[in-house]
């Protein structure tokens, strides 16, 4: 009976959001079928579009990998945007200051981004563990600080010569760009990096003793401490690791997408990734397709604007509706499961 219910919910989980999006299209006077067609065309219609979709997929994957670490430790890492920015800033520093061959510069940028993100994540962790500041508020505060820092750098010390614009820094030297294949904008290196990191994170969490302790801390800190786990240390560890991984997203954004530092370098991908991880129900393997789907909607919304003349914010609306309907469904599902035993008890 439970299996049938699961299938029913899976079916509804696909059907309801799709129907809801169709209604949105009808509401804005767009042909739903054409819009659907454009969704596939826009996101996967050519190898280049496929590549562009992957380009959005990369930071989403990295940010999701980061978040699954902190979620495993029972923490809401709202500071992820700031951690992405910190990684991008650190990588940009390397790109601006060190002149060397591509492999050397890129390696240095990746290491720097990792460290930058870890510092920012570690700050949120320290605030939580030592300062007793809820990680949500600490993270939000650090996000503002990170944005402030990046704007200061772009307007001040790293500004273009004779220019003071928040538009961004001078593009990096080509040595500091992630290499691409001919005709594609996405760098295979960044895709490999993102997938590799996700696999590494999942391996760490599920296979290692540290990952196990971290998960135990997240699921029940009280019981975990009875097992002799220093839960504070593991909370901090989760923030350090998550920050480092998020910092890598900053590296790819700076070195593979913008090739410079811009104020909105994190692109809101950190927040989007929170939704992805929630939808994936913290199961790592689902992150891949869900993140791809989100990337595809982002690409498709550009096509909807381009070809159907729809407003550019429609993609966000569709994403929001999808998330809401899936969350509503899973909430409804949880409630219906909870109800069952109670009514049975009442009958007996």
């Amino acid at each position, binding site marked *: 009976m439970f299996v049938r219910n699961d299938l029913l919910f899976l079916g509804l989980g696909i059907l309801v959001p799709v129907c809801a999006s169709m209604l949105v299209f009808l509401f804005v006077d767009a042909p739903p079928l054409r819009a659907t067609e454009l969704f596939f065309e826009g996101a996967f219609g050519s190898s280049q579009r496929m590549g562009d979709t992957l380009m959005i997929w990369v930071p989403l994957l990295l940010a999701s990998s980061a978040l699954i670490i902190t979620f495993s430790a029972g923490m809401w890492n709202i500071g992820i945007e700031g951690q992405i920015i910190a990684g991008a800033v650190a990588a940009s520093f390397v790109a601006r200051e060190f002149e060397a061959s591509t492999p050397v510069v890129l390696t240095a940028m990746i290491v720097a981004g990792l460290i930058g993100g870890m510092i920012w994540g570690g700050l949120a962790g320290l605030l939580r563990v030592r300062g007793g500041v809820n990680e949500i508020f600490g993270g939000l505060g650090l996000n503002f600080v990170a944005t402030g820092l990046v704007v200061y750098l772009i307007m001040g010390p790293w500004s273009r010569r004779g220019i003071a614009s928040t538009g961004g820094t001078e593009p990096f030297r080509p040595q500091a760009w992630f290499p691409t294949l001919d005709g594609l904008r996405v760098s295979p290196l960044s895709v490999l990096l993102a997938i590799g990191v996700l696999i590494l994170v999942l391996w760490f969490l599920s*296979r*290692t*003793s*540290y990952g*196990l*302790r971290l*998960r*135990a801390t997240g*699921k*029940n800190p*009280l*019981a*975990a*401490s*009875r*097992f*002799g*786990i*220093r839960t504070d240390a593991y909370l901090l560890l989760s923030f350090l690791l998550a920050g480092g991984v998020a910092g890598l997203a900053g590296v790819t954004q700076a070195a593979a997408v913008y090739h410079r530092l811009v104020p909105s370098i994190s692109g809101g991908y950190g927040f989007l990734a929170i939704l992805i991880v929630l939808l994936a129900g913290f199961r790592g393997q689902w992150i891949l397709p869900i993140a791809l789907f989100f990337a595809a909607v982002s690409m498709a919304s550009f096509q909807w604007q381009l070809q159907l003349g729809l407003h550019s914010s429609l993609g966000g609306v569709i994403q929001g509706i999808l998330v809401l309907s899936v969350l509503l469904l899973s909430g409804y599902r949880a409630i219906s499961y909870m109800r069952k035993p109670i009514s049975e*008890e009442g009958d007996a």
Partner: protein
Amino acid sequence: MSLQLRSITKTFGPIVANDSLSLTIESGEIHGLLGENGAGKSTLAKVLSGFVSPDSGTVELDDEQLKLSSPSAAVSSGIGILHQEPLVFLDFSAVDNMLVGSPRDGNHTKDLAEEHLLKICEQFNFSIDPLIPVQKLSVGERQQLEIARLLWLGARVLILDEPTTAISGSQRENLFQTIRSLAEAGMSVIFVSHKLEEIQEICSRVTVLRQGRIMGTKHLPCPTSDLIDLMFDRELEPQGRKSSDSLGSICLELCGQKVTTHFESGKVDMTFRTGEIVGLAGLEGAGQRDLLRSIAGLDDTVTEGVFFRSRDIGDDSYIHRMQYGFHYLPADRGREGLVDGLTITEHVALASPQRSIATDWKLSREESKKIIDKFSIKGTPESVPASLSGGNQQRLLLGLIPDNPTVLLMEHPTRGLDIESAAWVWKYLMSLTEEGTTILFSSSDFDELMTYCDRIFVFFEGAIIQELASVEATTERLGSLLGGVK
């Protein structure tokens, strides 16, 4: 006027909290409800006051059947309950608290409430300023306010649920005085308590509950031993385990330190020997748990002078003490003992001292299979705690105890286990003591305490009131000590 309960039954899942209870309470009577923790007194009080609806059974007041669907329905039917610490809105004034939850009609205005409160104050010698914020009142005064409120709303039956737990001695006298006046005025009072002395002092009759059933109703005063007979099962009177000669050297010493709960503090000076089993008896919350947690290093109620094999470990944390072989098994297995969502294999991996980065899951799985076999756990290595019964959870926790523990601290080691499993667990625990483990455990099971302990400490209201060698312990002795009677 009389209150009649007919066949009240209430179950929570497999637990029968009230098993077909029938009872009559006359007007002007102060009727005691006595029983140990979990006997079903509180559930009955909640049924009468509308907080819990019974599975079956009826309540009649003056031959009229009452509908007790909610607390407010109960109050308007004439039954009011006074909780240990009355639920009040701390920022509101006394008179506003009376208005909250009162029916919105012309008879319940602020002026009338104030008038009523002043009248009650005069009648019972209370001194409550109607306009004072409630947070400035003591718990005793809040009880007085709550009584005034319930009377104003028309209560004719008053239930007091362990009312003396949180108030001082003089406030207690005041409360008892009030209760007596209310009874003289014709009200029915139900006085719920586990304290034998109080019941003897104030009640005219008492009904004793045990495991959800009425064991008997007695007119008071009567010999306390009669009440204990009703409260506790005394079928078996086994002998003490062994003499203290066979015990090893001193393993753990507590000296000169304080064990504090929120009522009383007392000096404790005790030593525990290698291989010794010490039971901590007492009602829930009497202080046994605080002592166990203090020795474990989880609470700072014991702040100084904890010696393990002559070494001062007072400043060491639980994690540190674990390295000396200390181990603590909490009563709340689901919340504090096991990590829900992790499998048995993962628990085994957590408990084993592993320091390499990659866990050897094969080994952990083998190990968990062994534990499942050895402790007859009904589950697989992939089972999660939520899928295990309470007994199986406890077996798992026992299985997770590291090898060769020196000091084992346990709350209710066999609660929820059937007799056979309990016997098996104790066989296992005793085999540990043979190898030099010292065991301290709390329990409310007299048989368990008398059968397995070398010594028993009895706790009452935060202090140890008696130390017994196991040969001195009888059900009657323990029962009266638990009720605070030496």
